[in-house]
């Protein structure tokens, strides 16, 4: 089965190794909490990277889909007593349908206009979550019951860590499958040249819509998990700032690099925690790190480092 071993298999094994090995060095619940948030953000970013990095589209509204998933779980399990998995699935289907319907007009836009379109979408979702206080609790937010499935309740940092880690690994695996397939090539072709892709038989609109829906559904799933994990959610999850944060994670880690998206999510989730020592200067240092990365590592962390290692190995051989 030579086809099982691909260059990507190494990366996937490395990711699984990190996820499995990390508990050995995580000292307490606080670190687990950060790791779990990294996993949730990384899952969103892996999907968002398909849209931004591979297909070359932009979304400044993905926090909206994340929040819709979170609120679907919160409302359906809390107020209506649905089983959490059914609520999670309903949220994903709902976001899938919504993103599918909205993708048709939105993805006809290009560049700045697409950015504005998705930005507006995110803001509308945020406003609805804030205003529909009867349903969502408004700006005060709402509590979410814990995640119960198959007679078990996911409780405690170890169980959550294992669940989120598993979800991330499966997401990365499926994403790598997709990229290394006719669908993935078509997405990248749309990025490279829409005209040439169309004339090679690629239905450009269909693939743009597809990747938009896939990334939105993945964000919704991650949102549902987050809601159950956090136990309390507010409309801040749908905020514009949160959308920008997600895009920054993708860009920082490296566009069109799935592991880059994971690394970007990890860095931008951990950095604010690590910078608490700087207190008032926290945002200043945070901004400096971002600017430094964008100026000196323009392709993003993972592609740049991978390129450096490749060059280093080549020169070592010569």
């Amino acid at each position, binding site marked *: 089965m030579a*086809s099982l071993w691909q260059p990507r298999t190494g990366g996937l094994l490395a990711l699984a190794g990190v996820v499995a090995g990390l508990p050995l060095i995580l000292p307490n619940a606080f670190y687990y909490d950060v790791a779990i948030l990294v996993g949730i953000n990384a899952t969103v970013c892996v999907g968002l990277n398909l849209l931004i990095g591979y297909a*070359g589209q932009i979304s400044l509204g993905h926090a909206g889909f994340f929040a819709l998933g979170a609120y679907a779980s919160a409302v359906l399990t809390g107020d209506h007593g649905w089983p959490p998995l059914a609520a999670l699935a309903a949220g994903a289907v709902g976001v899938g349908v919504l993103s599918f319907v909205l993708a048709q007009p939105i993805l006809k836009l290009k560049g700045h206009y697409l950015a504005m379109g998705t930005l507006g979408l995110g803001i509308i979702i945020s406003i609805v979550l804030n205003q529909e206080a009867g349903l969502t609790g408004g700006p005060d937010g709402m509590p979410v019951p814990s995640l119960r499935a198959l007679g078990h309740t996911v409780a405690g940092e170890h169980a959550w860590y294992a669940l989120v880690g598993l979800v991330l690994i499966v997401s990365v695996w*499926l994403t790598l*499958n*997709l990229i*290394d*397939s*006719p*669908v*993935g*090539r*078509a997405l*990248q*072709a749309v*990025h*490279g*040249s829409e*005209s*040439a*892709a*169309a*004339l*090679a*038989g*690629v*239905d*450009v609109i269909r693939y743009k819509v*597809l990747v938009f829906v896939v990334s939105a559904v993945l964000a919704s799933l991650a949102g549902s998990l987050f809601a159950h994990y956090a136990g309390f959610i507010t409309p801040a999850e749908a905020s514009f700032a949160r959308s920008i944060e997600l895009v920054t994670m993708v860009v920082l880690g490296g566009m*069109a690099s799935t592991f880059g998206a994971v690394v970007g999510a990890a860095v931008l989730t951990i950095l604010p925690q690590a910078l608490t020592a700087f207190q008032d200067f926290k945002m200043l240092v945070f901004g400096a790190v971002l600017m430094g990365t964008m100026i000196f590592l323009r392709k993003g962390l993972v592609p740049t480092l991978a390129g450096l290692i490749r060059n280093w190995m080549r020169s070592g051989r010569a």
Partner: protein
Amino acid sequence: MTLLRVEHLSKSFGPSSAIEDLSFAISSGTIHSIIGPNGAGKTTLFNLISGLYRPTSGTIWFDDADITALPPHRRARCGLSRTFQNLQIFLNLSALDNVMVGYHLACDGRFLPSLLRLPSVVRRDRDYRERAVALMRFVGLEAFVDAGADAMPYGALKRLELARALAVQPKMLLLDEPAAGLNPKETAELDFLIQQIAAQGITVVLVEHDMRLVWSVSNHILVLDHGRKLTEGTGWEIRHNEDVVAAYLGEGGRHR
């Protein structure tokens, strides 16, 4: 047999018309050239035939079907393929994957089988990867099989476009200025390549400024001027048409 028939085709951009009431037919199995001075509407015509532009009026028939309203990807399915004057390479992909995109219609582009990487998808991908390598060898790109498209020189990228266009397995191949930017040796190789492609039964339509290439390969030439048909005929007829010689090739054109 007529493969492509254009009837009363017009395309205007605002008040100015790029193609005006143009009618012509192209029969299958030959090499055709479309010539004319800059601004004659040659590339516009290619964009209309390949579906990147919608005509203002008129009809395009391909292989006995009315394709006027079809989007580009459906025309590819009908057997139309093209290259671009300004290269449209997927620079974010490897050279081989550029050709693989050309095989998109032949591969399994469904979402779930790709997501789960079903063995059928993998097998078909592998088969077509071999064919893509063979195509790259055919156009003389064997040295670039493992290269990234963004690391290839201009001449190689032009061949890569050709390989990708051939991967669509077209009945008709539109080549928009394939010799532009090539040196005489490369142009001679291109000449040979075009003849080989035509010999496989693919109808080739060229838009070209390199008249030596046009005279050498064309069985039939269509001359455009200001979006209208000036004349059409064999190379010999065009060369000896006083209007064409005077207006487009210059007084010395006849002696070339």
